[in-house]
């Protein structure tokens, strides 16, 4: 499979100052959007729009293969898809070698673009793409995985989700939905409202917090999928603060979401031990995780996001005066034990310290 990168011919002078949040550090890393979706879901249509429309954004697009649309002044790079498995004792992950090379080449031309979009193949596992942004400190110092956007064909997605795979073979449609921060539910004109409701419920059964954006002919406002900080749980909760405790869509499904929302401060030592053990032993089945935590003794929120065993965290904004210190996190994965996750996390609260821990 060939990967190619091109930079959309776009007007310069795109609005850059919109993210200047008062008093908070601006993240100047280049936002990266990963586009996934089955064949026929509308990915190519959306990519062609990104490449050809006068949207005023300077976007570098990394495609699976050279696009059909010619782009003036495009920077084009290509390489073969390579998936490397990295086993480092405690951590096992896969990365995309071709992406590392192509991103390195793009960053040497940093002045030519403001955003990057990566298209994956219809059958691609999103994990190696996502983990590529977690497994190298140079990449993560320059690039920020902004969102995984999955296009879904409203007319056919249920067939893909219901497809029974041989043992040990992943259902890619399920994985692509599980990994997504945003779902573009495309071709809504081809199905009934009842069907759309059914499809949306099925999507949320797998990935409860995901935002579902309806579209026809892949016409979705680019500002809804590019530079949206969808990996940032805080932004997600602003849109739907109740999702963590939603249970109405909890169907019987192997891949699902578990949200936790608990007030109180966490004992950092016990949290480290629990989360470390959880990801070491269950990381293969935990596709995505993200959270905002209150660590005892810290004036700042602790924000983390992870893909399988790889976790990246840092201090976020300060807790505000009068704000309830609380912990919100979500896991999306296979065969998640909801009760165990809730109980084990609650045991990390400082107020629940065993007597021996308080010395």
């Amino acid at each position, binding site marked *: 499979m060939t990967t190619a990168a091109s930079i959309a011919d776009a007007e310069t002078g795109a609005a850059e100052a919109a993210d200047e949040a008062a008093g908070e550090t601006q993240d100047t890393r280049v936002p990266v959007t990963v586009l996934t979706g089955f064949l026929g879901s509308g990915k190519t249509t959306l990519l062609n729009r990104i490449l050809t429309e006068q949207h005023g954004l300077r976007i570098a697009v990394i495609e699976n293969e050279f696009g059909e649309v010619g782009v003036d002044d495009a920077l084009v790079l290509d390489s073969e898809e*390579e998936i*490397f498995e990295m086993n480092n004792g*405690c951590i096992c992950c896969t990365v995309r070698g071709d992406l*590392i090379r192509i991103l390195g080449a793009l960053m040497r031309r940093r002045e030519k673009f403001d955003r990057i979009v990566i298209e994956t193949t219809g059958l691609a596992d999103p994990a190696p793409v996502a983990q590529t942004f977690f497994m190298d400190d140079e990449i993560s110092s320059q690039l920020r995985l902004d969102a995984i956007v999955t296009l879904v064909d409203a007319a056919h997605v249920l067939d893909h989700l219901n497809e029974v795979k041989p043992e040990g073979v992943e259902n890619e449609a399920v994985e692509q939905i599980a990994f997504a921060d945003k779902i573009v539910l495309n071709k809504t004109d081809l199905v009934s409202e009842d069907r759309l409701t059914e499809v949306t419920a099925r999507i949320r059964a797998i990935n409860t917090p995901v935002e579902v954006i309806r579209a026809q002919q892949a016409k979705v406002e680019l500002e809804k999928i590019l530079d949206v900080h969808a990996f940032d749980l805080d932004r997600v909760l602003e849109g739907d603060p109740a999702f963590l405790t939603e249970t109405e869509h909890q169907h019987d499904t192997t891949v699902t979401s578990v949200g936790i929302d608990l007030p109180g401060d966490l004992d950092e030592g016990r949290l480290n031990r629990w989360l470390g053990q959880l990801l*070491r032993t269950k990381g293969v089945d935990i596709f995505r995780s993200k959270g905002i935590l209150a660590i005892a003794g810290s004036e700042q929120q602790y924000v983390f996001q992870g893909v399988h065993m790889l976790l990246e965290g*840092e201090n976020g904004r300060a807790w505000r005066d009068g704000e309830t210190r609380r912990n919100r996190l979500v896991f999306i994965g296979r065969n998640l034990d909801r009760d165990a996750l809730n109980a084990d996390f609650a045991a990390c609260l400082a107020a629940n310290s065993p007597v021996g821990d308080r010395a």
Partner: protein
Amino acid sequence: MPRPAPPRQAAQLTALKNHTRHLLTLTDEDIVLIRQLDCTEPGCPPVETVVAVLPPSGGTRRWTLHHPVDQITPDLLAAALAEPPTTSEGDEK
């Protein structure tokens, strides 16, 4: 739980990668990854930095330095890379 990410020192990381390329006489096709990891496994150091080389032909070489990435000097790197790597033949799928 990782600690707060180290300062975003892209220039230092680029320099470490370039030094790795020089020391190992790598080609442009070889990929160098550097990642600081936190580990809570009993018996493991709490912080380590992994340097990995991924050649286009498959199979990886890895070295682990028991230092945070921002404390790795060229001398420390050279000493680590002089040791035999952990290899993973056929890592590339």
